[in-house]
């Protein structure tokens, strides 16, 4: 039995039409369509392209929040695919975003290997390179006959459970993922050679290319502190005494929320710290050193601030991945918004 693969393409590659047909609604057809021929021949006899799912680029883009993804997933699911290919999209921006979106959804929801392809400057590449394998293509569909065999090869490798090598070997756009391996030489030995090369002005390399850190514009200033609702957030690992929610001492997987309602200070009988990255002795004795409930309560009484929220939000900062920290905030920010929080103090140790 050949292994089943489903292929996603847009209205243009399906031969339905160009810009004028970009509102074409989702449709699935048995067998191959358009570039599916190239895919079929690159995959070989042990694989079968059982269906081709087609969607107009504009339809996809304007319905991305209105259920186009679940709709497509339902269509794809019926064919019980074991692998999924989207595009390649080359330099077509909306098509690239659609390929990335659907490939990621199939990977996450149907748990099968996926691959797509696009030109490195396609906006879809930056959006999805961390999530799915994107074969790097040239900027026009003239590259189809070179690109499709690479897509097919990488899909087969994944479906056969073989080790996927680096971006250079496989031809995908670098995902920015840090993967371990055992080097032939130990680190110190390589470092010694590297510093000599650097001093001599010879070519050098780095194991870890510096990432570009994104910046966010500051939120507008608070106008009326005396009526503001202030929330306290910390990465100092402060938890309820006994750590009922098992917050980790390092590499936190979650955030917690604890009540400070009616408390005039943070007492050691109520709170403790589990942070594994500093000497906990001081904060253990007086949690106010990290969550300043005492001072905030006094300021609240004086009318300097409107209200100290009845809870604080906490996690452990040390060893916690930046993406996890981002996710925590994405999870609790809606809560802050719902509770009409006007300003936040975030205390890090």
């Amino acid at each position, binding site marked *: 039995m050949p292994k089943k693969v489903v292929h996603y393409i847009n209205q243009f590659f399906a031969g339905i039409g160009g810009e004028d047909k970009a509102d074409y609604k989702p449709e699935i057809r048995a067998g191959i369509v358009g570039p599916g021929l190239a895919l079929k021949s690159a995959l070989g006899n042990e694989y079968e392209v059982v269906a081709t799912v087609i969607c107009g680029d504009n339809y996809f883009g304007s319905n991305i929040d209105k259920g186009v993804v679940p709709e497509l997933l339902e269509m794809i699911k019926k064919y019980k695919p074991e692998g999924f290919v989207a595009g390649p999209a080359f330099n077509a921006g909306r098509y690239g975003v659609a390929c990335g979106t659907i490939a990621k959804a199939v990977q996450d929801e149907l748990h099968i290997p996926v691959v797509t392809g696009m030109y490195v400057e396609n906006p879809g590449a930056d959006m999805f390179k961390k999530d799915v394998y994107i074969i790097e293509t040239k900027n026009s569909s003239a590259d189809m006959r070179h690109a499709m065999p690479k897509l097919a090869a990488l899909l087969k490798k994944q479906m056969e459970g073989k080790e996927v090598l680096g971006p250079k070997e496989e031809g995908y756009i670098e995902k920015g*993922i840090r993967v371990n391996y055992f080097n032939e030489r130990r680190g*110190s030995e390589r470092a010694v050679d590297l510093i000599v090369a650097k001093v001599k002005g010879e070519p050098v390399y780095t194991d870890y290319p510096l990432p570009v850190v994104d910046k966010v514009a500051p939120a507008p200033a608070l106008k009326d502190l005396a009526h503001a609702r202030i929330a306290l957030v910390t990465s100092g690992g402060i938890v309820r005494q006994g750590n009922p929610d098992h917050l980790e001492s*390092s590499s936190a997987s979650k955030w917690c929320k604890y009540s400070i309602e009616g408390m005039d200070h943070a007492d050691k009988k109520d709170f403790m710290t589990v942070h594994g990255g500093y*000497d906990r002795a001081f904060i253990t004795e007086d949690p106010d050193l990290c969550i300043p409930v005492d001072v905030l309560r006094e300021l609240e009484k004086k009318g300097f601030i409107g209200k100290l929220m009845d809870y604080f939000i906490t996690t452990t900062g040390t060893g916690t991945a930046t993406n996890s920290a981002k996710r925590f905030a994405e999870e609790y920010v809606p809560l802050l918004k719902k509770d009409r929080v006007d300003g936040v103090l975030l205390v890090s140790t």
Partner: protein
Amino acid sequence: MKLELGKIHIHDVQFGEQTKIEKGVLYVNAKELEAEVLKDDRLAGCHIELARPGESVRITPVKDVIEPRLKVEGPGCVFPGIMGKVTEVGKGVTYCMDGACVVTVGKIVGFQEGVIDMSGVAADYCPFSKTQNVCVVMEPKEGLETHVYEAAGRMAGLTAATYLAKALKGMTPDETETFETKPLLEQIAQYPDLPRIGYIHMLQSQGLLHDTYYYGVDAKQIVPTIMYPTEIFDGAIVSGNCVAPCDKVTTYHHEHNPVIEDLFKKHGKTLNFIGVVLTNENVFLMDKERHSDMVAKLCEYMGMEGALLTEEGYGNPDTDLMMNCRKVTQHGTKVVIITDEFPGRDGKSYSLADLTPEANTMISCGNGNIVLHFPAMDKIIGTQESIEMQIGGWVGCKHEDGSFDAEIQIIIASTIANGFNHLCARQY
């Protein structure tokens, strides 16, 4: 300063009536060793267990690992200022018990104690899966304050190593290596055509239960200073073990500092190794600023053209690392950083907590967040009770059959950030 290291190879360890070395086998009189360790009244109990490479044995929670060494000729003793008077070390002759280690094991002090597996997949990541280990399993007295217990544990390891080292007396080394660094001006004159390279060694000193010690002084009390490289081979630096297990620069790793070893290998060939700048990692920003200023000044003063830079630990010490890199570069010394990485289990986050554009040549010691399955072992030296609390574990990571899942940062020295191992991370 010139030091000869005489290595006596050890390929097996056994209990025996007398502590001695015979034909590469270390025999240990457990009773005598236990009695020696128990002279410390802070400990309620102690027993000795042996672990050899390839055995189905897990050692945890591990505090420190130490190679027994004996001063044979020249001033001072091994671990000066701690196991004997403060005397300058680094010259003369020192014997090493090559291939054997003391491993201190005991009820958890903090979250920072780790795991050594003597076989299985985790053994690939741990240098001490390949050594003959004499495990000192300690029990503290009831109600001992944690800092006091830690000090007792640290001393137990050094005491045991000093006791075992006596067996080296009168032996004939299987292998001898000589290391020499001359006073700065002479050293520079010796190889005028080779690049002048130094090493900036950052000692963990965050006061997290315990610290690193230099000639017996707590490293958080030092300002940056200059050291002859050979001093370290005589135990001038003793571990404080206050970071994630994977990052621990154990006392063994100070005795075997790989940067110093590898710089000596190329000394007089491709480079001129002129010395070590010793600095620390502090918990106050002012100290970080002051000490990185001083490091940059010392590098410039010594005429260093290039420097290797290592840290112990992750998180806020990354700031010390980056400050040192930036300021030293700006003072005219080129820098290569050796570091490990913590980009999350999926490898998608930033690897370090802080960055600077000058950090453009970094050697990676691997991603410490990768999750591994640790198979059940026939024998546990110590206890697996606290695995879930140890850094790298999590609640629910333990399975009924004695196996568990954890990030490789739970393994002692798995991603040690001085380049001791071959583990590395690359970008996919």
